[in-house]
């Protein structure tokens, strides 16, 4: 079992969370994990920042989708708000590659030389795309590779972000929005709603309009812009930016009493998070969920173009309620955010509660529910937007099934392991797609 270092980073992260929730982003806690209550928008943004994740924040206009991300990024990466604002990409139909990634250096071009002027967005580790669903579907493809790998290409040049996190905000469907294309949606690790804080907190927010000035610093902003505009190598820019960011971090500590994270701190934290492993229950539950989200007895796997067979034995499972197949990014997102959460709560391993807490957010935007399920549950009494509500319901149902057969399921997986190692055993049978998947894996091994 991994032992998370007692270096106070968790306390520091919780202090950042507290500072944001008490001074910058007022909202109600809407989730509870192991007796600790959190606001999901701040918590998930915090984990996204620390874990180099990608988060999609949805919500009504003016409910703090962008600002919550900005505050978290400013405190975790030590960037003054002015720089973050100047690096954001806003989604609109006229958006171009030149405004998002980079453009030719016109001065040099006049002299017959080809050089790229990279945008602030592509250079800084904090990336915020505001109103991503206002980008036309054809233009969303421009940022696919950058979002996925941190590779930004223009002309024949490329910069690679070693450290970056991405936040994108999206309004609910209105006249000016487009659907986010499936490959882009799948690249987001989590989706969270920035909710209405309630009339009373909303009233307080209205009273204090300039609360974000505490994260501004014109001098450091100017210095950072100067570095970003300079013509030095990208790696050198990064180290120069770090120096300025560290100074801004010290300023924040002096003025606000909040200690932000320097690059070595963030690396150390990520190392600690990576060392946290899933315990057997967490692993078995995740496998069970993935099996239900990908299984089709008739056609081998779920495919968005194929429909369920009438009278299928597996009608009681999630596979019968959804259209698409879970991608390989899903387990990665679940593990990453569960690691982050377990680390923050100072737990020594990822357990079932961490999984249950993060799965709805990793699943909500990825699952395409069948129309009958949507029409059935659309009018259910709920606090969450429909996709998150449906994902939470799905997690509850799978967890219930897991509780009923956890021992047998783990036994089946253990038997699978023994057979894989050459043991003369018979695979265990059970009424769940995962048992079929185990048998499929074993059969492949036997055929070798």
């Amino acid at each position, binding site marked *: 079992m991994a032992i998370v270092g007692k270096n106070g980073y968790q306390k520091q992260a919780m202090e950042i969370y507290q500072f944001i929730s008490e001074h910058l982003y007022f909202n109600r806690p809407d989730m509870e994990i192991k007796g600790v209550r959190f606001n999901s928008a701040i918590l998930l943004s915090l984990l996204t920042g620390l874990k180099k994740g990608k988060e999609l924040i949805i919500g009504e206009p003016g409910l703090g989708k962008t600002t919550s991300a900005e505050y978290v990024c400013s405190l975790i990466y030590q960037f003054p708000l002015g720089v973050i604002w100047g690096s954001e990409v806003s989604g609109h139909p006229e958006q171009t590659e030149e405004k998002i990634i980079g453009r030719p250096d016109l001065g040099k071009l006049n002299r017959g030389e080809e050089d790229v002027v990279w945008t602030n967005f592509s250079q800084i580790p904090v990336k915020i795309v505001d109103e991503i669903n206002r980008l036309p579907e054809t233009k969303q493809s421009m940022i696919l590779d950058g979002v996925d790998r941190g590779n930004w290409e223009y002309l024949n040049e490329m910069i690679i972000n070693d450290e970056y996190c991405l936040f994108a905000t999206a309004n609910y469907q209105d006249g000016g929005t487009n659907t986010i294309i499936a490959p882009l949606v799948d690249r987001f690790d989590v989706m969270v709603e920035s909710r209405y804080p309630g009339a009373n907190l909303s009233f307080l927010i209205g009273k204090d309009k300039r609360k974000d000035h505490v994260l501004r610093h014109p001098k450091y902003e100017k210095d950072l812009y100067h570095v970003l505009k300079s013509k030095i190598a990208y790696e050198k820019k990064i180290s120069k930016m770090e120096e300025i960011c560290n100074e801004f971090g010290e300023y924040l500590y002096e003025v606000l009493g909040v200690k932000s994270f320097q690059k070595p701190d963030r690396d150390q934290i990520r190392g600690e998070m990576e060392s946290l492993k899933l315990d057997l229950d967490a*692993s078995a539950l995740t496998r069970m969920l993935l099996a239900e989200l990908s299984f089709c007895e008739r056609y081998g796997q779920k495919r968005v173009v194929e429909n369920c067979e009438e009278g299928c034995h597996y009608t009681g499972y999630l596979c019968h309620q959804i259209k698409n197949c879970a991608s390989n990014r899903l387990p990665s997102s679940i593990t990453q955010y569960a690691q982050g959460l377990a680390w923050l709560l100072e737990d020594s391993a990822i357990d079932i509660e961490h999984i249950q807490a993060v799965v709805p957010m990793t699943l909500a935007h990825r699952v395409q529910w069948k129309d009958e399920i949507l029409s059935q549950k659309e009018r259910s009494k709920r606090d969450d937007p429909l996709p998150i509500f449906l994902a939470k319901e799905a997690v509850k149902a799978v967890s219930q099934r897991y509780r009923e057969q956890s021992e047998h399921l783990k036994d089946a997986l253990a038997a699978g392991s023994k057979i894989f*190692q050459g043991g003369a055993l018979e695979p265990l049978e059970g009424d769940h797609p995962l048992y079929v998947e185990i048998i499929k894996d074993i059969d492949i*091994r036997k055929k070798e």
Partner: protein
Amino acid sequence: MKATPQRKKPIFYLSKESGTIKNPFEEFKYFTVPTHDLPLDQIVQSTEAVMDRIRWGYEKLLEEEAKELVWMVQYNTIIKAYEVAEKYVKEVDYAAEDIEDFCFALENTQKIPYLIPGPAGVYISALCNYAKEEEIVLKLSELKTEINLLGFRLPKGKRLMIDGDTGDFTGIGLEGGELAVEGNAKNWTGAGMRGGKILVKKNIGLHTGEWMMGGEIYVGGRVRGLGNIVEGKVYERDKLVYPGKTKYPNLYY
């Protein structure tokens, strides 16, 4: 001669197992299903263990007393047997219900070789006297054999209730405890008792209170005969019969 250029070592070596699929269940390699004992199974198991210990003590007592060949009810024989019983009883951690189970096991199980009412009664008395509970109820009405010597040396602060009939020498040498018999008691009840109370709901036999040094005996039915009582009181249907007009022991009155 030109030296052959050394080949660079590859970063990754292909193992013998390369080409085989990774075990996707690796982490469950050491998982074994824990055996969950049902609470009832645990209770039965622990009860049986206690019963074995109690039975073992009784067998030891019988072994030692077998030297006497025939078990004679003599006061020093009883004291000696009680000392042996005490020795074994002290080693067992049991509850009041276990004593009742033992009483039934005496008659109904093949595990106990023989029921000798004398040593059995001494042993049961020792169990009652050393039990943690202050009040002990023994439902013996279903027993075919009437056990002798129940309530021997019952100490002060203890209450022993017997549902059913008892044999001879019930409550002898009582040391301040309270013994209630919800049935009949045979001869020599309360013999040599020093204090405490014996309540017999129905009838009582001969020699009641023989050499009794103190305490009280209450009989709800009839007293067939009193013994030579030194000190103490005997009541028959709320009527004091000793001390009273009866001066002649073992006589019908």
